């Protein structure tokens, strides 16, 4: 059986910045356990001699010229933001108030 415990689901959800309800934790834990057991078969399929493929079509050295291209305007940049102020994106305090 897999190691997908409710605690692990909470930890992963934290890393992924998703608030999860207790019900979700329980549901994800059981579903993920099944999925992980199933996908874990890849471990048995490979060995150290096999190279990993991260790009399906091998390519290298694709570079861009160091030439300035037009940027967005400030208004375009901020157009989708929930909140902005003084030309900047506005976010809640980063640290908890003590």
């Amino acid at each position, binding site marked *: 059986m897999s190691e997908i415990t409710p605690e692990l689901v909470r930890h992963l959800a*934290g*890393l992924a*910045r998703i608030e999860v309800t207790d019900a979700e934790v329980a549901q994800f834990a059981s579903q993920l356990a099944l999925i992980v057991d199933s996908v874990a078969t890849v471990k048995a399929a490979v060995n150290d001699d096999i190279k990993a493929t*991260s*790009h399906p079509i091998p*390519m*290298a*050295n*694709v*570079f*861009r*010229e*160091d*030439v*300035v*291209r*037009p*940027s*967005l*305007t*400030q208004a375009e*940049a*901020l157009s*989708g933001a929930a909140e902005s*102020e*003084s*030309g*900047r*994106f*506005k*976010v*809640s*305090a*980063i*640290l908890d*108030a*003590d």
Partner: protein
Amino acid sequence: MAKDQLMDYQKALETYEVVIGLEVHVELNTNTKMFCGCANVFGDEPNTNVCPNCLGFPGAMPAVNGKAIENSIKIGLALDCEIAATGRFARKNYFYPDLAKNFQTSQYDEPIAFEGKIDIEVPSGKVFTVEIERAHMEEDAGKLTHVGGSTGRIQGAEFSLVDFNRAGVPLVEIVTKPIYGAGDEAPELAAAYVRSIREIVKNLGVSDARMERGNVRCDANVSIRPKGQEKLGTRTETKNVNSLRSIERAVKYEIQRQAQLLSQGTAIIQETRHWHEDRGATSSGRPKSDADDYRYFPEPDLVPVQPSKEWIEQLRATLPEKPAIRRKRLQELWGFSDLEFRDVVNSDLLDEIDDTVKAGAKPQAARKWWTGEVARIANSEDKDITELAITPSQVAQIAELVESGKLTDRLAREVLTGVLAGEGDPAEIVAKRGLEVVSDDGALLEAIDKVLAEQPEVLEKIREGKVQAAGAVIGAVMKAMAGSADAARVRELVIQRATEK
């Protein structure tokens, strides 16, 4: 920890061995950002040098700046590194509001350069070889402004504002291996190392290397262990150290703080710490923990970087000489004593003086002006010398005016003030302010005659051969000429006149 609670520095070093490690981030001065065509410039209106890519908009993709790769390879070569046959970008995943994609495109297990070394001379003259573990490419984050609470501090802020102009600016992060054996010179070594990195990237022309603008930033890892102990101590990583002086102070502070804690039997916490220039102290930041799981994986939107041997050799051929070699050459060329030269290096004025000499000044004059008057003004204004509005060529012009007798030292200082005030080049200021030395003997003789008439007893003494008595007359004449006279010429004329009469 308040400063009076720290362990005495010498005492700390009697008991503990210091190990430091330095991570220096260098911002490259390419025209465009690392992964998009937005302009890489400092100080523009917020969020005007941004595009879908550097804002992390859905669907946007990175495109690698070839010039940034070239510059990174140059840095690697200048640090005697191996250049990777295959380098790859990786994603470093973590959430932070200044990180548009919530991952940083960086390099992980395949950095562009690795296994280098650099010789660093500390103020005592001792030379340490610092080993470089790796130099890798990555992108800078945006800039946060914290609003509310105490000014600009993240603690207690009500909210924060984000400007992504800096997001995506190319960075090269240079990481040293642990540095052992620097002893009580560890703080100086740290500062001297960063100075050398600055010098290298500046001479390579790949970075503006202005620390006050964050072009070069240093994170200092410090750990201590009881002498004789094999196991390394727990280290702290002090961030936000953005001047050479601060690096030295921060490392010293951490040594003393950690020594104090260990001597009390308190364990060191592995954490990031922040340096506060005003208080001269570090404070606790974020603890490092298991939660720091960056889930690195190869950036699927980019293909590997595989620099050819020919390209690497081409770039190697363009490298300027190494700092240590350059220093040796310049000291010989300029004929400075060890003390004079070290003073220049420690004041971080090597480039300025080199450029001033190249602009025509005599080395000693260049040294005198930079380490003397210019440094004094920078100090009194609490500025970095590079922030002053004066160029090496202007300093050379002033030195030349003094050399040719057109300016006295006092007048030259006035010209310097004019240059710093933005009044123009030295020659223009001399003309505008009417500062040129009075070389018209007629005007001088008129003044001399007047003074000699007022002081007949002095005249008598000079005539009797007591030449030193002339000093009083010279002083009065200089005063009468408001300083715009060449004291040596006045002296000549005084003696001539006195003997004539």
